[in-house]
Structure formats: C-alpha cells, structure tokens
C-alpha cells in the first residue's frame, strides 16, 4: 500500500500566479528564475530570428544589395549564430532545467537559489554587451571567431563579443553546478538515480559537459582578449603565434557545446513521447546511459571541425571518434521509436513537435556521419551542407524539442492550456518552413556554395529563393507560438494539476505550483514512466482527486470518469 502525500478528498486552494513585478526583480525562487530565463531567451530568439531573415533577404540575389557592405553582412550572421547559441538555446534549456528539476525531484528549490539568480542575471548584461557591439563596430568573424580575422581585423565589437561570451560561460557554469548538486543530493526518498525522470538525466549529462568544457572557452577567450587589447601574439603567426591554438581550444569547448544544446532536448523528447503515447520509455537505462556516453565521447571529437586545417595525420583518429558518437545517438532514436511503438499516440502539439524532432534530428544525424567521413568532408566543410547539418541538429533537434517542451509544460507554469488548434498550425508551418529552408541547403553546399558569403555564384540563385521563401514561413510560424502563449496566459482553458496524466512529480502539485512547490514532501511513483498499470492509474486518479480536473473543454487528456471529481480552480493573477 503506497500513499501519495495529498490531503484526502480536500481540494487544494486556488494558487495565485506571481505578479509581473516579481518577474522583473531579483528572485531566488527557481520557478520565477525559470520564467525569467525563458522570456529573456525568447526575446533573444526573436532578435536572432530577425537577423536570420536579414541573411536570407540578402541571399535572394547573388549580389550584395540588401546590406551596406560585406562587413555588415558578416556581423549579421556572426551575431545571429552567437545569439542563437548562447542567448537562446542554452538559456532556454536553462529555463526548463530551472523550472523543472526541483519539481521533478519533489524539492522546494535548487541547491543554491542565490547562485541560481546570479547565473540568470549575468545573461541580460551579456546580451546587451553583445548587441552593443553594433555601436563600436560589430564583430565580423563569425560565431567561431577564428583568429587572425578576429584579432587583427574585426571591429571593437569583437572585444565586447568576447567579454559577453565570458559572462555567459560563467553563467552556465554556475547554473550547471547548481543542477548537478540538486540532482545528486536532493532527490526525494524513494527515487534512486535509476528512477529519475530522463529529463534530469539529460540535464545531469549536460551539466557535466558544461562544467568540464566551458572553462576551456574561458581560457581561449582570455587569450583572444589579450591578443586584441593586451599586445600579446598568441594567434599572430607573424610574431610567433599559432592560429590552430584557437581552433583547438575553441572546439574543445564548442563541440561538446553542441551536446549541451541537444542533450536536454533529448531529455524533453523522452518525457513527451512516453507521456503522450501512454507507454513507458523503451530502454530507460540505455537512454540514460547513452546521454552519458555522448557526453564522454563528445570530448574526444573536437578536431572534426578542423579536417581542412588540422595536420593530416591527426584527421583519421578524429574521424573514428566522431563516427562512434553515432552509436549512442542511434540507440536513443531507436529507443524513442520503441517507446511510441504499440502506444496510444495522442497528437497533441507537444507530441507533434516531439515526433517532428525525431524525423528531423535523424537527418542531422545522417549528415553528421557523412561529414565525419574525411574525404567527403573536404567537399562540404564550411559550405551550406554544414549550415544545413547543424540547423537540422540545432533547430530540428533543439528548437523542435523546446517547442514541444513549451506545449507540454506551459500548463504547469501558467495554469492554462495553450490553444491546440494554433499549436497544430504552428507545427505545420514550422515543419514545412523548416524542411524547405534547410533541406535544399545540402545540395547547394555540395554543388559549391560556401557558407558565410553575401555574394555567390549565380547558378545557386534559384535554390536560394526557395530557401528564402521557406525561411520567411518559418519566421512567421514563430509569431503564432508567441501569440498563442500571450493569449493563453490569460484566456486559456484551466489546465488543472496534471492535464497530461503524467507520472513525474512536477504534475503532483497545483499549476502553477505554490512558491514552496509541494505542501508536503511528495512520494514519487516507483516508475516515472510506468504507464499501463493499474497502480499508475490509481496514482494519477489520486492526483486528480486532490487537485481537481482540467477544464472539460480543454485538450487535456480525457479521464476514465470512474469517480466524480471536481474541476481544478483557475489560477488567478
């Protein structure tokens, strides 16, 4: 006889949502911080997206006509890449990590709430620093900032770029320390590591990468700053420096950073596929372990970004380590298919994006293996093929999973459901827009169009027009999501505590949760994905009894209706 810790037959009182003022101030509540992260990241997503559309607008013609000059175009994609990586994807997963980890572990807050707030508040100044570069001559060396272009040439914005990334690196290290300690120390009684939600596993692996790799970025940036303002010549070959030094140290961070950006998404997808197909995760341990394997092997592959610059004899070893990564990634993909196989798939917007993730991410995986093959890499390195590859991983992977996560957890954060019809429209436009933006790039790249050019050979124009039109569809689709979120925040249907009838602990409290998260220490269900058992049904029914039902007209999962239940109170402001 197991129990869950909610008062018998007694409905929880209405929960007040935090006011706007609380979101604008320093707060140590992980839920406030989570929302602060998310809103900040979404703002930067819009900025980065606008920059991307600027790039596509320029590329409608093979000549330089939209931007004033080549330098302005170079800043465009440099800032686009930097913003999307460091100010959108990484902080957005920081948002979900912050909001969800303590809730999924049944904890009151993170291990170090104050440090958590500090980690967030480093981000806005860093973002302002980065964009402020436009006032002093923006960086034009790309997000990779290879010297000597970034040291001897690029504008003073490059110095601000480096300082900004430095701050963001410190922010993510502080965040990651917090995640690791919270996950390792603050699990509730009855939840071993192997009973932890897979999202926590993913964040554990991610945080491990962050703490081990980000210091290398700090080291590289220190040298870059010294070369720019301190008169040193670490990267100036004319004075005995070495340009490969930067590439090695930079990629030692930045390749693992790809997994920082995609592992949390994999965690999200593992959760959502299981919940929305009403079936346990297939091969839970393998998914958890493959995250760790990816994190470990991810440290040994950095030089595959340098196949055209690295000493030839070192290229093959890095090809082999890179190919190895395909194995744990494959395990995940097949396990996810195993998860939905035989389930009761419900096509909620969250599920659509999770399935979209699967179908798009696998393309990024295939092109990744192709890129690892050194001879073929020579042809496509630094071309649109690579642009396509990493957008399939980072948009088809990370951003699709972020969208899925937004549809899945927005009800928990706001107490309201997102509109499902708008969600489906958003999915359709995103999926089509995304595919036709990035898939043709493979071909354009193989045929000979390098990346980061404003001027290109006229024979590529027709494809660039197709890509450009699709990219505007993709850009527009984002506005639907933002409208949906804004509208649903106040007008959406009441979500109740557990609209998706999910077993993880964040659903065993009101939506939104009170400041202290749980009225009493919650007792986790013995299997976070144990769907399809009577025990799970009983557990979920008990949550419904204690917290009330979602609005009957909402798109929440329908109930069996065996016991008469009251509707959940609406969350007010």
């Amino acid at each position, binding site marked *: 006889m197991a129990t869950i810790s909610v*008062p018998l037959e007694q409905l929880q009182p209405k929960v007040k949502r935090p006011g706007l003022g609380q979101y604008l101030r320093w707060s140590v509540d992980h839920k406030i911080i989570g929302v602060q992260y998310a809103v900040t990241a979404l703002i930067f997503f819009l900025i980065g997206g606008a920059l991307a559309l600027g790039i596509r607008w320029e590329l409608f013609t093979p000549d330089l006509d939209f931007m004033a000059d080549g330098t302005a175009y170079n800043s465009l994609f440099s800032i686009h890449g930097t913003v999307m990586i460091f100010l959108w994807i990484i902080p957005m997963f920081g948002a979900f990590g912050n909001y969800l980890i303590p809730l999924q572990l049944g904890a009151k807050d993170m*291990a170090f709430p104050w440090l958590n707030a500090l980690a967030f508040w480093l981000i806005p100044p860093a973002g302002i620093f980065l964009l402020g570069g436009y006032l002093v001559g923006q960086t034009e060396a790309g997000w990779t900032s290879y010297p000597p272009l970034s040291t001897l040439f690029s504008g003073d914005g490059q110095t601000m770029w480096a300082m900004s990334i430095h701050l963001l690196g410190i922010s993510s290290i502080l965040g990651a320390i917090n995640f690791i300690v919270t996950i390792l120390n603050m699990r509730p009684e009855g939840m071993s590591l192997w009973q932890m939600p897979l999202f926590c596993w993913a964040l554990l692996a991610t945080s491990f990468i962050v703490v081990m790799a980000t210091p*290398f970025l700090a080291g590289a940036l220190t040298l870059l700053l010294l070369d720019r303002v301190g008169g040193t010549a670490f990267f100036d070959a004319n004075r*005995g420096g070495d340009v490969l030094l930067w590439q090695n140290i930079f990629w030692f961070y930045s390749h693992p950073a790809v997994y920082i950006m995609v592992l949390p998404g994999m965690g999200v997808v593992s959760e959502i596929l299981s919940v929305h197909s009403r079936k346990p995760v297939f091969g839970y341990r393998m998914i958890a372990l493959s995250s760790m394997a990816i994190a470990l092997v991810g440290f040994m592959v950095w030089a595959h970004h340098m196949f055209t610059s690295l000493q030839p004899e070192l290229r093959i070893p890095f090809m082999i380590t890179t190919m190895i990564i395909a194995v744990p990634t494959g395990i995940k993909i097949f396990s996810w298919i195993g998860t939905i196989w035989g389930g009761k798939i419900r096509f909620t917007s969250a599920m659509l994006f999770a399935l979209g993730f699967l179908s798009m991410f696998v393309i990024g995986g295939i092109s990744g293996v192709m890129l690892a093959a050194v001879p073929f890499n020579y042809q496509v390195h630094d071309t649109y093929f690579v642009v396509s590859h990493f957008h399939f991983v980072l948009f088809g992977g990370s951003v699709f999973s972020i969208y899925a996560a937004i549809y899945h957890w927005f009800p928990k954060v706001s107490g309201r459901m997102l509109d499902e019809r708008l969600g489906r429209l958003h999915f359709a436009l995103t999926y089509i827009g995304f595919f036709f933006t990035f898939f043709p790039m493979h071909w354009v790249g193989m045929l000979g169009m390098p990346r980061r050019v404003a001027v290109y050979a006229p024979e590529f124009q027709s494809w660039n027009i197709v890509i450009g039109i699709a990219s505007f569809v993709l850009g527009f689709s984002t506005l639907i999501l933002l409208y949906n979120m804004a509208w649903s925040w106040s007008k959406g249907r009441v979500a109740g505590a557990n609209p998706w009838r999910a077993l993880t602990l964040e659903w065993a409290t009101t939506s939104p949760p009170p400041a202290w998260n749980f009225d009493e220490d919650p007792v986790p269900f013995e299997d976070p994905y144990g769907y399809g058992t009577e025990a799970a049904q009983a557990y979920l029914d008990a949550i419904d009894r204690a917290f009330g039902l979602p609005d009957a007209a909402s798109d929440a999962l329908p109930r069996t209706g065996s016991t008469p239940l009251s509707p959940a109170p609406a969350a007010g402001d």
Partner: protein
Amino acid sequence: MQYTTRKPLTAEEKRERERQRQEREAALRLKNNKLGVTIFQGSWIMVFVALIIVNWQMRYSPEWLKPGYSTPDATLPSVATALLLASAWSARSALRAVKADQVAQFLSQWRTATVLGGAFFLIMLSQLFALPPEAGQITSVFRVMIGYHAAHAIAIAFMMVQVMRYAQARPKHYNANNHWAVEATVRLWYFVVVAWIMFYVVLYWIP
C-alpha cells in the same frame, strides 16, 4: 494495489515535522555546499589545464624562446612553493583545530597560513617580471599563467583574511558547529595549491 491518500495532520504532528524538516535542511545545505565546491574545483581546474595545453602547443612556435634568453630560474619559485605548501598545511591544521573547538589554536594557525600565503603571493608577483617581453612567446604564456594563478590566489587569500578578521573580532565565531566558511576557504586554498603545483612543474621544470 490500491493508492490511498494521507489524512490531514494534527497541529502537534505539524510542529514536530517542521523541526525535523529544519534539521534535515541544515544537513542538506552543508552537503550541497561541499559537493558544490568540489564540482566548482573540478570545473575551474580545467581553465588551468587549458592554459597548460596552450603552453604545450606554443612550445612548438619558432619564436618560443629567442636565442640569448633562458627559461626563468627556479630558485625563488621553489621557495614560494614551499611557502605555499606550508601555508596549506597550517590552514589544514587550523581547520582540524576549529573542528575540535580549539579556538585559540585555530586562530594562530590561521594567521600563519595567511601570512605564508601572502608571502607566496608577493614572490609570484615578482615572477611576473622574470622574463622580458623580448624573450619570445614564452613571456606571454608565462605571464598569462602566473597572472591567472595570481588572480585566483588573491581572491582566495582575501577569503582567508576575511575569515581571520571574523575570528579575531569574535573569538567564538567559528567553532565545532559552525566552520563551513573556514572549510570552504581551506578547500579553495588546496585548489590554489594544486593549480600552482601543476604550473610550477610546467613553467620551471619542463625545459
């Protein structure tokens, strides 16, 4: 199997739970702090590893050490290393003392540790100028490494001074039950020692 839900608690039970909860949370805080500092150390030592890799790769530069210059002399840094080790040793003794509630002994050993640390720091500052800029790439690498280490050393030495000031102002401030600040400082000081030993070997003993 049937799931039931718990009955509401009485006021008495609630108070008792509250007391237990506070105890648990205090223990958890300490546990979190310890793990947090350990992970921070594991993470931040990577910056020092990165700089060692920089050192190693720059050694291949044709202008690593121009003819007519030699690598810096190891005598003074060896003295500094000895001072640092001694400082860490007395910081460790001080921590043991405070854990055993021997407050006076703690304070005297802590003072010794701080003074030795200060001496180490001064020698390190002088080492920043052990090589002239004309000597080649070695000077930049050398200065970055020493400077980076010194920046961390001064931050943590500042913590040591703060602990000393608190302990002097209120002799019983740190005791067997309250010594996390001391322990954290000692742990971070160990970190400075480990980072320094790595640098010391790389900078002075690998030709």
